[in-house]
């Protein structure tokens, strides 16, 4: 009887786990990252740990190797967030490409990133003749 009960609990636990995962994935409240617009609409408080996702605005990416100061603007097409970080970004971080940042909002509205993650799309293709892969170009 003891083993039977353990079995029942195990199977129920598995069913609950799957149900939980299913519901979580279908519910928009469980999010991996917020877009800048979502962060603004939810009034994410200063100092609260947050994760934002969007695109690196063209013309905004700056990295100074001497000071290790990293700056760029993260945008979702509607809302812009100035991101300030420290240290070299992943080599795939490109203007016009996706990025996910973890950190907190500062009181001046900028986002202080503790982690900068580059996001790439699902397209794969060889470089056009004569071009070098973009991750190798500084």
């Amino acid at each position: 009887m003891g083993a039977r009960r353990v079995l029942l609990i195990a199977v129920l636990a598995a069913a609950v786990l799957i149900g939980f995962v299913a519901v979580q994935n279908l519910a928009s409240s469980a999010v991996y990252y917020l877009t800048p617009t979502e962060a603004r609409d939810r009034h994410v408080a200063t100092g609260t740990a947050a994760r934002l996702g969007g695109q690196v605005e063209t013309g905004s990416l700056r990295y100074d190797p001497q000071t290790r100061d990293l700056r760029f603007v993260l945008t979702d097409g509607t809302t812009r967030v100035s991101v300030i970080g420290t240290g070299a970004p992943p080599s795939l971080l490109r203007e016009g490409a996706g990025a996910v940042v973890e950190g907190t909002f500062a009181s001046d509205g900028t986002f202080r990133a503790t982690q900068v993650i580059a996001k790439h799309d699902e397209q794969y293709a060889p470089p056009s003749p004569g071009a070098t892969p973009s991750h190798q170009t500084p």
Partner: protein
Amino acid sequence: MIETTAAPFPTIRVRPWLGRLAIAGSLIATFMALVWAPTDAVQGDVYRIIYVHVPLAWLAYLAFFVVFLASLGWLWTKRPWFDALAVASAEVGVLFTGMFIVAGSIWAKPTWGVWWTWDPRLVTTAVMFMMYVGYLLLRSLSTDFSRRATRAAVLGVIAVIDIPIVHLSVLWMNSLHQLPTVLRAGGSPALDASMGMTLGICVIAFTLVYFAFLAERMSIELDRQRRMFEARA
């Protein structure tokens, strides 16, 4: 009460050939993935992990779907052959899942910049891995053949639901992992033709590996079953 003894896996002549084909396929796939396929415009050569990561993932999905079918087969017919198929496929599936998670992590560090993150695709994959490890552990809870098989089969039927959840997670939620490149609705696969062909060859090679492992593991399990039933008789 199980009366029939399990017949030997009817591939005494096929099994060595499966192994040889799997090795040959792997060699061809390795050459195509590392040498023949072009480099990627964005990621450079690190993208070549795709030729390991994606086939292993698809074969893991297949393996767990086979567990689902075999579980149904046991529950429906109570034939021990189905239980042997289920445990064999689950073991290969768990192995492949562990491997593609590691391959993904190795790919993630130079591209995304992190070894791991709790994005929807990675979370659901980790859950899938743990569920099928749980499936294997559940089997060790009982020594009675029939009970063990039935318990495992129930879990094998339930757990398969996570496979579409894993695949669709990137479509349902904001995620770091990119959208599907091949298995997607609307539009042809988003990769160059030579890359697509290489990926196809790699999938074939890994499928041969899956079946080679499956045949060997089933052969061992059916042998155990036969000795167990003969010992009882």
